[in-house]
């Protein structure tokens, strides 16, 4: 890119071939990074004194289902507190192998943010110390922010019943039976 801002040009010079593309929509600095060796790229972004993107602001993901390949994109927002600059890093993640490096060794704040991405998008983070669901409950199946998850699909945690005691749907009934079975085992 010939017309890149000096800041973005600087990042490109430093990271070289790890950057797949760079752009500046609405004046933001955005780079697309290679999924291989992601943690090392971030370590360089964080620890290189010329770059010093030392503050991880946010991690999220976007699902481009049936729109582009790879299907997912994990999006990181970095801030350099010393240079007062922002940088957005996007990483493509294919549906067949939804795994990216965890950034928890670099920033502890990545812990909850990555758990949320796993919970809602089903993207795994390798070497994450505690990759559990965070907003939803453990029995939940599927990842609701994926575009192929139906909006109106209900997964009640407590079986739903009408006032007369009949079950709202078959699944709830099965669930109650399962619960009773596990409770019977314990007592």
């Amino acid at each position, binding site marked *: 890119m010939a017309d890149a801002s000096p800041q973005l040009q600087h990042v490109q010079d430093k990271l070289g071939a790890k950057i797949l593309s760079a752009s500046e929509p*609405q004046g*933001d600095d955005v780079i697309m990074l290679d999924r291989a060796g992601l943690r090392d790229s971030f370590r360089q972004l964080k620890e290189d004194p010329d770059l010093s993107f030392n503050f991880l602001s*946010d991690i*999220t993901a976007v699902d481009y289902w049936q729109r582009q390949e790879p299907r997912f994109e994990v999006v990181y927002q970095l801030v350099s*507190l010393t240079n007062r600059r922002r940088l957005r890093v996007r990483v493509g993640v294919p549906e067949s192998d939804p795994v990216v490096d965890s950034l928890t060794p670099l*920033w502890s704040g990545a*812990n909850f943010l990555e758990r949320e991405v796993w919970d809602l998008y089903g993207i795994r983070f390798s070497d994450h110390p505690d990759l559990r669901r*965070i*907003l939803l409950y453990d029995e939940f199946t599927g990842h609701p*922010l994926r575009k192929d998850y139906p909006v109106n699909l209900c997964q009640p945690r407590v079986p739903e019943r009408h006032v007369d005691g009949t079950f709202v749907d078959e699944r709830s009934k099965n669930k109650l039976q399962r619960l009773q079975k596990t409770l019977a085992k314990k007592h």
Partner: protein
Amino acid sequence: MKAESPELPHEIMELQMGPSHPATHGTIKFNLKLEGEKVLDCDVEMGFLHRGFDKSCEQATWTQVIPYTDRLNYASSLINNVGYALAVEKLIGAETPPRCQYIRVIVSELARIFDHLTCCGMAASELGAITVGFYMIEAREMITRIIENLTGARLTVTYVRIGGLKHDLPEDFAARVAATFTTIRRLLGDCDSLLSRNRIFLDRMSNVGVISKESALDHSLTGPILRATGVDYDIRKAFPYLVYDKMDFEVPVGSHGDNYDRFLCRLREIHESMRIVEQALKQLPVGPVWIDDPRFVLPEKEKVYGSIEGLMHHFKIIMEGIQVPAGETYSAVEGGNGELGFYVVSDGGGKPYRLRVRPPCFIAMGAFAEMIKGYMVADIVPTFGMINMIGGECDR
């Protein structure tokens, strides 16, 4: 204070605190591992108020999302409105007129005062200083009346629109604000003399929930919690938006990173916010509050009912939503609890393709275990109080 355990036979007790506990004024659960009274580990369980904010926003038009943003941090819904509108306007490439920007600054600061008063008042009353709690709720009520007079609602205001505001300020706004601020300053002075050198309050707050500067940055903390450790990172100064660069205000910072510093930071921020509102009201320019672009602005009612073009225009905006060009952007504002960011992806249609909120108190809860480890069970109450976790924003 750090608890010292004597050499006695002991076993680790597991205690579940919450989700409906008088001290957790928000639905959240702490799975604690205790050695006597000392907290060894704390696993935060959240999501009790999860209602699928992101997914709901993908089903709504760009304008219909604004009421959803009210329900994020409902103690400062005006800031959420402003943050969301700024993100969408950044994607559109529109800049609102100066009067609109000044009014947005005024309402953001009013919301910040509201947020800080809620946080400090609740935290103080949980520690037994119920008088201070009442004083601060009285001050908050006066802010609520201003907001009600302005928007017609007390909490879920939906005042800001993409490209403008619902309507201009009412005529007596400046006079009301001036009268209210006089009373709030008097009430805050009373609170300050009751608490800031109060022995009981100091014992409960100072050197409790300490987090170091390095650890706070490592945990991505922002807002008063980060500033209490001595880092002067405030979005209003670091990445000025609206007309904050024309305002003269200070960013209060602490030094210890404990609960007492967080409390003082918030108290001083209330004073700074009042200064900003007074300056903005003094500088407030005359002019329109809407951008001059019919693609994003609803036509006047006379045109809707008087001409076919106006009616079609109104119908298109309501039914299909405003058309935001394809692209993605991130825009952050300084919320009551820290960096409130909106990451917006548009596919060029009338609905957001993806809308992500960076929730400051969700991230602060990620550092909660770090803050509370080694302290007593009773220290959870002030520490959690000073985080000001709001379920609507934390669980989305």
